[in-house]
Structure formats: structure tokens, C-alpha cells
């Protein structure tokens, strides 16, 4: 146990761990994370197996990286606690064990004698110290008087707040890792969606995309209603950077897309039989339109937003963006198929080339319409409040550590006939230049006779 504490209270260990964690973190930014085995094999060849076995390919959640962080946390706890006990004792119950010799060896020191009794001088010094906002404590013994003034003692504990904040942040990270839950929801206008793991639902009332004048997206907005226990509990319009929170769940506007399952298409049909005519057809996929008293039928069978042929020469979509929308239709006359082919809204002339034979019918694909869905990133993260609390402690600690420098002045008073011999020493571990001035001013104010 003793050697365990000694090992983990060492600052040298902290330095070594910091260096190793830094180097490991660098490695993780050089090797792309969370890619497929095939990609690693292509990029690293023989080495890829080793990289994956060492979990370098998911470094920040690898057992050894987490073990390093764990050791670092343990190091911080043990090191901070062991020093904290000593520090508390030193600050709140300081020992009066200093000598003239030790005071004279300090950077800020003075020695002189003054008229008056110990008692009056003690009062004067204490007054001067209090004037400069020092806290005064004294101790008497074998004809000497020891006085100690301390200021901004909280400054000793800045580093402890920093380390505590760091630990709270790490704890928050662990909570996030285990209890945090994140997923993307796709929700169309009018749809009610049960929120995964929660006991309430979400309804999208309206989804809008806003554009800048040059056509690029400026914002997405979703009007959401939280439905809890069958009642509308909360209504809010979310947009990027302005999420909705409810019962510890947060909903972020993250993307949008089209609902390609039920699009409707508008086709223009030109026919020459029985008379020349042009018809505009509005259809949903799976539906058919009928003309010429039931003799002519047009079926819309399939839709893809981004038409492409795959290796097997089958039609698929390359993406969910409407880059090359295409619709597959068939036409029948008296039950016989007279047209069969893909129509492209961006390439109106393509259809004829792909229809089986040149008939009297000519189609073009003029418009399509699909409902949009809103992509909502959902997060339920019980660790996040710990993170903010830890950050606050960390920042508070940094301010205290760097900008609240503790000061201490020590006095030894020795009675010598009817004069008193004074030895003064000042200690400051930070902002030594400013302390030098403070110290000199203090000593001068005591030295001057009232």
C-alpha cells in the first residue's frame, strides 16, 4: 500500500504519463480512425493486422489508451490528496518553527531595531499587516515573539481545484461513455415518432430550409412538438445550434433529406393516336393513369433520386440527393405493352433511346415532388452536466493558481534592553516582483515611527 501510494503520488510519473498520452494521441491523428479493415489493408498492407490488433485503429477507445487515462487519473487523485493534507496543515495550522537565520536567507528580508515594548510593537505590526489585508497569527516563547501574516492563502489551493476539475471531467466522460446515448432520427412532416429509450414522442409539424441569396443553405428549421402522456407538452422550433431539450434528452437539427418512398411525379405524354394530343399526368409511384376510355394505361413503377447502373447492370441510386432523378414507367394499349423505359428529369431526350420500339407515344419527365424529412440528432447524455461542472472548477482553479498568489511575512521580535530587535522575511512563490514592492512598503510602514 505504501509503495503504491508512493508510486502514484510521484509527479515524475505524471510527466511520463503525460508524454506517453501525448505521443499516443498524435498517433491517433496520423492513422485514420474507425475505417473498414479493407481500407487499412489497402493503406498499410502487412502492418494493418498489427494496427488492428493493437487497437490503434480505434485508439481513443482502446484498452491501453483508457488504461493510460485511468493511471493518469489515479496519479492525479493520489498526488493531489497527499499534498493537500500537508498543505491544509501548513496553511491553517502553521508551525512557528522558523529562525532568524532562515528569515535572513529569504529573497525578501529585513532586520532593524525599534523603540518600544514588545506589546506595543506587536500591536503596531498587527495593525500594519491587517491594513495590508494579511491574516495575523502569533506565538510567544523564551523571550521572543513570532508573528506570521498570510494573505490570499486560497492561492495555495488553485492547483487542487484544477486537478479536481480534471477528475470531474474524466468522470463525466466515463458517464457519457457508459450511459450516453446518441442516434439520428428521421422524421417527416406530420409524423409522430416514439423517442428511443424515452417515454415520450416527437411530432414534426413543419420543416423548412432557408437559403441565402446565392442559393446556399442558411438554415434548417423544424417545428417540433413533444407529446408526453398523450398531451402536447412542449412546442419549439429547432435550428442548427439551437436544440430542444426535454427530460434530459436533447434534439439537434443536423440534416435533412427527401422521403423517396412515396414521391409523386409529373409526366408529359405526347400521343398521335387516335388524335394528336398532349397530356400532363400526375402520378404517385405504384399508381396508374388511364386514357382513351380505358384503352391506354400508364404505370409509374419505380423512382430513384440519383440514377446509376451498378456492376450487374441493375438500376440503383448513387445517393439520396436528387442529382439524377429517374422514373421507370410502362404503358399498355389494350393490354399490350407499348412503352417501357426510364425517364430522366435532367435528360428529357434520353427516354426515346431506351424505349423498346418507336411508338406513337412520347414521354417526358417534367417534375417530381417528395416530402422532406428532417434529420435530427438526438442525444441523451447524463455525463454532460459533470463536464460543465468540471470545466467550471478547472477554470476557477486556473484563475486562483495564476492570479491569486499567496503571500506570507514572518517576524521575529527579540527584546533587547528597551529596544526590540526585528527580523522580517517575506515568502511568495509567484509574482515575486510585485511582492518585492509590497514587502518593502510593509516594512517601511512598520519602521516609520508613528
Amino acid at each position, binding site marked *: 500500500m505504501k509503495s503504491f501510494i508512493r508510486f502514484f503520488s510521484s509527479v515524475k510519473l505524471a*510527466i511520463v504519463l503525460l508524454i506517453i498520452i*501525448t505521443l499516443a494521441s498524435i498517433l491517433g*491523428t496520423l492513422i485514420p480512425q474507425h475505417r473498414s479493415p479493407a481500407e487499412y489493408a489497402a493503406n498499410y498492407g502487412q502492418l494493418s493486422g498489427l494496427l488492428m490488433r493493437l487497437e490503434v485503429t480505434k485508439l481513443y477507445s482502446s484498452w491501453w489508451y483508457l488504461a493510460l487515462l485511468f493511471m493518469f487519473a489515479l496519479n492525479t487523485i493520489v498526488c493531489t490528496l497527499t499534498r493537500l493534507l500537508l498543505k491544509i496543515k501548513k496553511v491553517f495550522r502553521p508551525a512557528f518553527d522558523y529562525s532568524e537565520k532562515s528569515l535572513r536567507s529569504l529573497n525578501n528580508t529585513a532586520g532593524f531595531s525599534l523603540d518600544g515594548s514588545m506589546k506595543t510593537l506587536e500591536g503596531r505590526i498587527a495593525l500594519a499587516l491587517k491594513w495590508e489585508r494579511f491574516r495575523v497569527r502569533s506565538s510567544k516563547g523564551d523571550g521572543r515573539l513570532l508573528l506570521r501574516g498570510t494573505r490570499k492563502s486560497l492561492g495555495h489551493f488553485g492547483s487542487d481545484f484544477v486537478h479536481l476539475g480534471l477528475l470531474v471531467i474524466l468522470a463525466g466522460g466515463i458517464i457519457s461513455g457508459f450511459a450516453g446515448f*446518441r442516434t439520428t432520427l428521421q422524421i417527416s412532416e406530420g409524423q409522430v415518432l416514439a423517442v428511443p429509450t424515452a417515454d415520450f414522442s416527437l411530432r414534426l409539424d413543419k420543416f423548412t430550409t432557408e437559403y441565402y441569396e*446565392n442559393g446556399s443553405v442558411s438554415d434548417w428549421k423544424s417545428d417540433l412538438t413533444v407529446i408526453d402522456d398523450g398531451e402536447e407538452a412542449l412546442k419549439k422550433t429547432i435550428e442548427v445550434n439551437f436544440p430542444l431539450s426535454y427530460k434530459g434528452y436533447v434534439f439537434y437539427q*443536423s440534416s435533412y433529406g427527401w422521403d423517396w418512398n412515396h414521391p409523386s411525379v409529373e409526366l408529359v405524354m405526347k400521343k398521335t393516336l387516335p388524335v394528336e394530343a398532349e397530356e400532363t399526368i400526375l402520378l404517385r409511384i405504384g399508381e396508374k393513369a388511364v386514357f382513351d376510355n380505358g384503352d391506354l394505361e400508364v404505370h409509374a413503377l419505380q423512382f430513384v433520386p440519383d440514377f446509376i447502373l451498378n456492376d450487374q447492370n441493375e438500376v440503383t441510386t448513387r445517393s439520396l440527393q436528387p442529382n439524377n432523378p429517374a422514373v421507370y414507367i410502362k404503358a399498355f394499349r389494350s393490354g399490350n405493352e407499348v412503352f417501357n423505359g426510364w425517364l430522366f428529369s435532367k435528360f428529357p431526350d434520353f427516354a426515346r433511346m431506351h424505349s423498346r420500339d418507336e411508338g406513337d407515344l412520347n414521354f417526358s419527365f417534367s417534375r417530381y415532388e417528395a416530402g422532406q424529412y428532417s434529420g435530427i440528432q438526438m442525444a441523451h447524455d447524463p455525463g454532460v452536466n459533470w463536464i460543465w461542472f468540471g470545466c467550471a472548477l478547472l477554470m476557477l482553479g486556473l484563475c486562483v493558481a*495564476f492570479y491569486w498568489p499567496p503571500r506570507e511575512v514572518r517576524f521575529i521580535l527579540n527584546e533587547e534592553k528597551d529596544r526590540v530587535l526585528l527580523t522580517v522575511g517575506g515568502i511568495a512563490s509567484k509574482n515575486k516582483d510585485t511582492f518585492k514592492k509590497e514587502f518593502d512598503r510593509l516594512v517601511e510602514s512598520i519602521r516609520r515611527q508613528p
Partner: protein
Amino acid sequence: MTEGTLFLVTFILYIAAALTYFASLFTRKDKLGRIGYGIVIGGLIIHTAALLLRTFESGHAPFTNMYESLSFLAWSGVLAWVIIDGKFKIHKPGPYVLLIVIALMALASSPLMPKEATPLVPALQSYWLWLHVSVTMLGEAFFAVAFVTSIMYLFASTKEKKGAASSTSISADRLDSISYRCVAIGFPLFTLGGLVFGMIWAYRAWGSYWSWDPKEVWSLITWFVFALYLHTRLVMGWKGKRSAVIAIIGFLAALFTYFGVNYLLSGLHSYA
């Protein structure tokens, strides 16, 4: 006055200030150093005007593309230097700090940098962007000054060892303590801007405060290096050469976080 003209005037003033500082370095006239300081303040004021004008014209924070971001970084560097020189009255590192600033300004005005203000993608429309970027850059600016004084320390200490130090040049000890003071200002700023505000913004925009994105990791690395600086110095009593080397590495890490990650690694922070 257009923003471009103000930028140019600023650029010229910084060059003039650097030359004056250099002149003070070689002629050993402190008065020239003070004049250089005055010119830098003039440049900073006009630079501030340029940034404000840009903000009003574009309607968003002046650091959303590389041109704006470089110009803002240069501004932060000058501000940090004005504070340090004002506090410690040492003009000697001035020309070197300004050399970095001028390099940033030159890079910003190079034809490779697109200058027109573009509308913001949705994720960038947040006041946390202001806080995150401006505070981080200010912290990095103090690291930049520490970088310069640390390099000067290395030169000064070898010179002093040879017994060649002249009475007018700044002592190695003083450079060492100024480096520390810069880190002591830069570290809390960087922590607040780079890590805390960064996490808050990421949480507001993406729903996740930390995603181990390369830019995040490199900020963390920079932070670790300066934590190393503080602990070796304050707990283990390292000073001088070793401290200076860590401060230099720390600034290089910050620089890589800023430039390298964008151009060499890929991640979420695809904009400046």
C-alpha cells in the same frame, strides 16, 4: 475607406514598427524601441478598425475563412505583444514577434486565400463561435510571444555562458521569466477558449462535446505540452533551457493545430 485599404495600412505600419524595433536593436537606442511600440499600437488600432468594418459588412465574426482567420490571429499576436511590452517594457523581442505577425498578414493577403466574405454554413452561426475562436487565438498569441522569448533565451544563455553578454542586452533570466508569464496568461485563455468553449459549442451544434476529431486532439496535445511546461517548472523546478524547449514545442503544437490539421489531416473542423 474599404477594409482592404485599412488592411494594407495596417500591414505597412507593422513593417515600419518591425524596422524601427530592429533599428533600436542594432543602435541600442531605447527611444527607438518606444517609437516602435507606438507604431505597433497605431497599427493595432487600424487593424481593429479593419476587423470591425469586416464584421459589419459581412454580418458575422471576422474569422470564418482562412483570410479572416489569419488576419485575426495576427491581430491577437499584436495585442498580446502590446500587453507584454506595455507591462515589462522590453522592446527586444518586438521585431521577432512582428516578423511572425507580418508573415501571417502576408499569408492572409496572398492571392491563394479567398478574401470575399461568404455566408456562414448553419453550424457556424453561433455566438459560441466568437468566444471559442477569439479566446483560443488570444491564448495562442501569448504562446507565440513565449515562443519568441524562449528562442531568445536559448541564444542569450549560450552567449552569457561564453561571457559575451553586453550590459544593454536583455538578460537570459529575464527572458525566462517573461516566457513563463506569457504561458501563465496564455494557458488559462487557451484552456477556456480552446477546450471549454470548444466543448460547449460542439455540444450545442453536434450534440457531443468531444468526438476525438483531429483538431480537438491536437488542441489537447497543445494543452498537455503546456501542462508539462507548468509541472516541470513549478513542481520539479526546471528552468531555463529545458523550459524554453518545452515552450517552443508547445507553440509548434499550437501552430500545427491551426495549420497542419486543416491541410494534412481530415476532420470535422474543415473550415478555419
